[in-house]
């Protein structure tokens, strides 16, 4: 790592409207119990008129407040989203304007699901050049769900929301130790969203690769730091599906209770989920791991040390 970087704070925002399994089940010819057993999800939030940038801005403000800094102090803004409303510019420019920034560089990462871990890893390696970096991931997956006739396998999963993290060279809450990122473009068509088309998800292939690559990525970064999975105090991953989270724990040989999960409340909010989870997370001192996997296929893992 070229510079020691720290994660100072997380932030999150989810819309007010709660969509229960019972509400969805009535539209999907299934039962609320089946939705929960297939995904671990009990409810999710769906935005109304709010845009991806609106969600992102709210999470950004929450994170800046928790970190105790002003937007004007930011040196770089990274916004991940796979559900932005237009081709360009992406939501990052709108978020910057909403935060009152008119010269601070912004980067859009059009990376669903793994967008948070990509943003966090990149930020941890760029802080030496840009100073305070705000990473945001925001998704309005309800527009994806409603973009076509409701499909049972995807409609049950997704929710809307945004998460954020402030990364800096100033010593703070989590010292970043290392991170790895990977992409396998051979699988790009197995999870894809084209303009004007419904979400395409080849579930078994996604699950096969996620079940292998998430533990492999985590194992890779832990080995580089000579840390055993058993010594990690807690893992926070992309909240894709509770069954997948449990699988990863099993593959790593750790108890499922080590995997922080809030998917029951918010569903799969794609790239936003890992940072939304981190904003509700209060790990004990010691090594912690962030990880994500998604369309691309992109995946990665970051190990940090919780210092209090």
């Amino acid at each position, binding site marked *: 790592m070229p510079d020691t970087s720290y994660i100072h704070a997380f932030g999150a925002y989810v819309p007010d409207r709660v969509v229960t399994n019972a509400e969805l089940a009535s539209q999907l010819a299934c039962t609320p119990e089946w939705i929960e057993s*297939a995904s671990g999800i009990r409810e999710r939030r769906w935005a109304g008129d709010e845009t991806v940038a609106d969600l992102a801005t709210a999470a950004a403000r929450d994170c800046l407040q928790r970190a105790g800094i002003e937007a004007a102090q930011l040196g770089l803004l990274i916004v991940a989203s796979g559900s932005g409303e237009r081709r360009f510019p992406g939501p990052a420019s709108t978020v910057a304007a909403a935060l009152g920034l008119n010269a601070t560089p912004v980067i859009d990462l059009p990376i669903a699901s793994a967008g948070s871990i990509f943003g966090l890893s990149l930020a941890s390696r760029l802080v030496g050049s840009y100073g305070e970096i705000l990473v945001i991931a925001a998704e309005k997956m309800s527009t994806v769900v409603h973009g076509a006739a409701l499909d049972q*396998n995807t409609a049950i999963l997704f929710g809307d929301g945004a998460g954020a993290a402030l990364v800096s060279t100033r010593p703070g809450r989590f010292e970043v130790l290392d991170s790895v990122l990977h992409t396998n473009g051979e*699988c790009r068509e*197995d999870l894809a969203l084209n303009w004007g088309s419904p979400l395409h998800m*080849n*579930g*078994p*292939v996604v*699950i*096969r*690769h996620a*079940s292998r690559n998430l533990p492999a990525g985590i194992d890779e970064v832990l080995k580089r730091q000579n840390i055993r999975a058993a010594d990690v105090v807690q893992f926070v991953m992309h909240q894709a599906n509770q*069954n*997948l989270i449990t*699988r990863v724990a099993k593959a790593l040989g750790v108890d499922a209770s080590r995997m922080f999960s809030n998917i029951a409340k918010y569903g799969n909010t794609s790239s936003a989920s890992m940072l939304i989870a981190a904003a509700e997370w209060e790990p004990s001192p010691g090594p912690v791991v962030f990880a994500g996997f998604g369309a691309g296929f992109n995946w990665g893992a970051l190990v940090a040390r919780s210092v209090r």
Partner: protein
Amino acid sequence: MRDRLLKVLQKVTGQPLNIGDEDSLFESGVLDSFALPDLASGLEEEFSFKVPDADLNPRKFDSIARIEAYLSEHAKV
């Protein structure tokens, strides 16, 4: 081959199989999207071959008869 296939299927599902050869394993709830990759891994190990991503499709593994047909075509049995 059949006994080895049933052994793999039972290990993946974790329960005794009470289903006809032509019955849908997915519609009956024996398999789902999470169990299919496990079934593929189990078959790969038992029959020493690879199930490519392109074949990881519920239709190809939707009944005991279909799995037998798939193994006859692709595996060393």
